């Protein structure tokens, strides 16, 4: 096994999971809501690409971003806004309800067989060959992940709305007492989550062009596990957790013999259990951390 090859592939997949983690962690930060329905945004993006596969590539990607952002915004506006002040368990159940409702919609609209979203399959071609074999999609994953993560950091640290989001994530009531508009901050978090979901949909369909009703579910569950492992209380620990789970999945997938790759999820979750036993507060959470800034 070429170690460098494995590392590069791991970092690329880690970047994709980190994007999912950012979407989950931003919404958890400002709403204390674990948005289980985030995966449906990714699935919606996948189906949009499938439906727009005959379009020019840029137009298909732009439409995917629009659909994911509008769906994310609509989720918040229609389903979650009214539940803002109820118990966390209620909102969690609401996210399950939204997720399963949308999965039923995908099933009715597109059937169980799946739709092919063959828009950017050219990115599977080899960009670097020789001892290292790097596909274009690996490079695109690294660049896209890096740019979107850097953009999110800039937004949070260099803009007024970013400052308001960071404040709201620390103490929402205190932020509102200063005039921070709850609706605006939460809507922006959902819009960013929608952009992240669109990017993940585009990147994933290059490797797995068959979009089924559960297309976004698995990556979301794994990223959610990564967010918990990394530490939900801060955006950067959650993002690193998402990255780590993607990286570990890729590396373990390479390390396992091909006839035993069916055990990959078991191996990943075994690793998760070990990490949580050793660092229950999160793999990347500072030791003895008290009150924290969540975004």
């Amino acid at each position, binding site marked *: 096994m070429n170690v460098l090859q494995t590392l590069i592939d791991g970092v690329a997949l880690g970047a994709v999971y980190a994007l999912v983690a950012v979407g989950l962690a931003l919404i958890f930060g400002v709403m204390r809501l674990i948005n289980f329905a985030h995966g449906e945004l990714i699935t919606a993006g996948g189906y949009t690409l499938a439906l727009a596969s005959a379009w020019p590539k840029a137009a298909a990607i732009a439409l995917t971003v629009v659909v994911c952002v509008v769906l994310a915004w609509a989720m918040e506006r229609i389903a979650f806004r009214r539940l803002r002040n109820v118990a966390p368990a209620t909102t969690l159940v609401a996210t399950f309800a939204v997720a399963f409702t949308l999965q039923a919609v995908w099933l009715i609209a597109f059937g169980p067989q799946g739709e092919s979203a063959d828009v950017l399959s050219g990115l599977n071609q080899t960009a670097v060959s020789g001892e290292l074999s790097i596909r274009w999609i690996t490079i695109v994953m690294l660049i896209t992940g890096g740019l979107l993560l850097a953009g999110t950091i800039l937004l949070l640290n260099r803009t*007024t709305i970013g*400052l*308001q989001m*960071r*404040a709201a994530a*620390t*103490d929402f*009531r*205190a*932020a*509102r*007492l*200063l*005039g*921070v*508009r*709850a609706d605006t901050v939460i809507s922006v978090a959902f819009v960013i989550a929608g952009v992240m979901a669109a990017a993940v949909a585009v990147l994933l369909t290059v490797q797995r062009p068959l979009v089924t009703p559960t297309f976004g579910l698995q990556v979301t569950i794994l990223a959610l596990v990564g967010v918990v492992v990394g530490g939900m209380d801060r955006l950067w620990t959650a993002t690193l957790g998402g990255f780590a789970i993607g990286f570990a999945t890729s590396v373990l997938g390479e390390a396992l013999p091909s006839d035993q790759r069916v055990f990959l999820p078991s191996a990943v979750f075994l690793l998760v259990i070990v990490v949580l036993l050793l660092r229950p507060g999160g793999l990347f959470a500072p030791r003895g951390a008290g*009150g*924290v*800034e969540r975004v």
Partner: protein
Amino acid sequence: MLEIRDLEVRYGAVPAVRGLTIEVNEGEIVGLIGPNGAGKSTTLLAVMGAARVRRGEIRVRGSSIVGARTEDIARSGVSLVPEGRHIFPHLTVDENLRLGLVGRRDRDGVRAGLDWVHGLFPVVGEFRHRPAGALSGGQQQQLAIARSLLADPELLLLDEPSLGLAPSIVGDLWDTLGEIGQRGVTILLVEQRAQITIELAARTYVMHNGEIRTSLTPADAGDTDRIAAAYFGAKA
């Protein structure tokens, strides 16, 4: 400036504020004192739209604000320095101050506002790049007040600003509140430190068990028996 009439606030079945009526005129410093659980903080939260009003009326400059959103009230010239300060510990002092500008109605006077709060509280300029959580309790209180002042409020609500502070620091803080009042900011000061509040305020309401029991003036500041009786529930 602020009129509260027959206010009732409940937490579930438990009444926290019962039939409260007070008035704060423009440019006044008015005190609201009483023991723990009297309903003082709840009254301020009701003014800010953060506690639901069951009955009664709250008017600022003659307009009702009952049912308005907290953030809209904060953007209308009413600012609360909450109990416990509620600064954002992981943001820098400067970032905390910038959040104070969110509620500001007029962008023109920002520079002058910053100069004013830096003059009142030099510590917020000195430690501007430090995480706010690294400040001492007294410094955090100064930051919380400075942050509220940057919203350029007409009405400043202060919830137990002396809580947890050493007496010497409280003395300085009271001098500063006097300066802020002289600048024309109307202040409603909720406190447990009765005597110094009565001395500072034009009028101090004494609250007990959700109700106003009496009101005192600076002339009553030396009458400790009357203050103690009022504080512990005697009606005037």
